């Protein structure tokens, strides 16, 4: 991931936000979606994505579904009810963080 230290803390929120918007998604789809939205600026690495997904699943924020697609099994992730609530909280937290950062980095604009 680009500038990994800065983005790392927000990876879970990014995943949850995308799942909130798109319903269910599979791992590869998430990496592509992020790349598309940010026009290639942000690249979620595979080595970071799956651990994050598995952690969110273990925390009960994500649920999984399996489907057979093109001769192979595909694992879809979607938000659970508690995951949906948590997404709202985490997005609010992230927005607050962005606001504060803006104040620090560029006091005139804020």
């Amino acid at each position, binding site marked *: 991931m680009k500038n990994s230290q800065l983005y790392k803390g927000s990876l879970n929120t990014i995943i949850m936000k995308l799942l909130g918007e798109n319903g269910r998604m*599979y791992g590869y789809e998430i990496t*592509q979606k992020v790349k598309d939205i940010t026009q290639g600026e942000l690249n979620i*690495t595979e080595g970071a994505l799956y*651990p994050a997904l598995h952690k969110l699943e*273990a925390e009960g924020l994500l649920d999984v579904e399996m489907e*057979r697609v093109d*001769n*192979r099994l595909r694992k879809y992730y979607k938000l659970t009810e508690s995951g949906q609530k948590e997404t709202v909280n985490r997005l609010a937290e992230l927005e607050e963080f962005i606001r504060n950062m803006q104040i620090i980095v560029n006091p005139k604009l804020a």
Partner: protein
Amino acid sequence: MKLSVTQIDLVYKFTLDHFVKYYDLQTELVDHLGNGIESQWIENPTISFDEALQNEFKKFGVFGFMDVVEQRQSALTKRYNKLVWKHFKAFFAFPKIIMTISLILGLFFILKNILFDNVLISVFVLALLIYSFYNMIKNKKRADKKTQLGGKRWLFKEIIYNYGNSFVMVSLPLQFLIHFPQISIQNNFILFALSTAVVAYYLTTYIMFTIIPAKAEEYLLETYPEYKFSK
């Protein structure tokens, strides 16, 4: 162009060769690598399967799948611990709490009225060890039989049958026996706390060695929606 069934099998083998032993994780990685290879073919149809596979693998970084495997292990261990905790809490809720309290009080009176020496501790520890090992062997036979039938290894299943890697649990009372061969406790409060701790310990062992393995299939289905496809 889509991956053929033979190529999918090759990708499964590739993950196995790169130390991903578990079918659940292999399946997710195979789909991911497959998608990556197929999108490379869209951009460059002449690229070979092997080359495309290597390109995708490189994206996982120098440690390959290691991180993914380790993190998956810790996520599922957490799930297992939660499961143990859920069962444990049930013993402190109605109606099971009646039995739990009776056990604690029973133990308290035994400890209070009978000399608490190393013979008594030995009986407790030995009973626990025999019980644990007997169930370990019994569960292992059951798990092996199921693995042979399905031929696939599931990470959560191994965690269940390795009891969350908590062999420390079994050796702890043994340590206790070695280091505190003789204890004389007069204080009722300490004696009660000790009885509670011992009962909690036995209950946890019972949950891990009997309750959860008995319901293993149910928990595996809950964890892996694909489990039912692959038996």
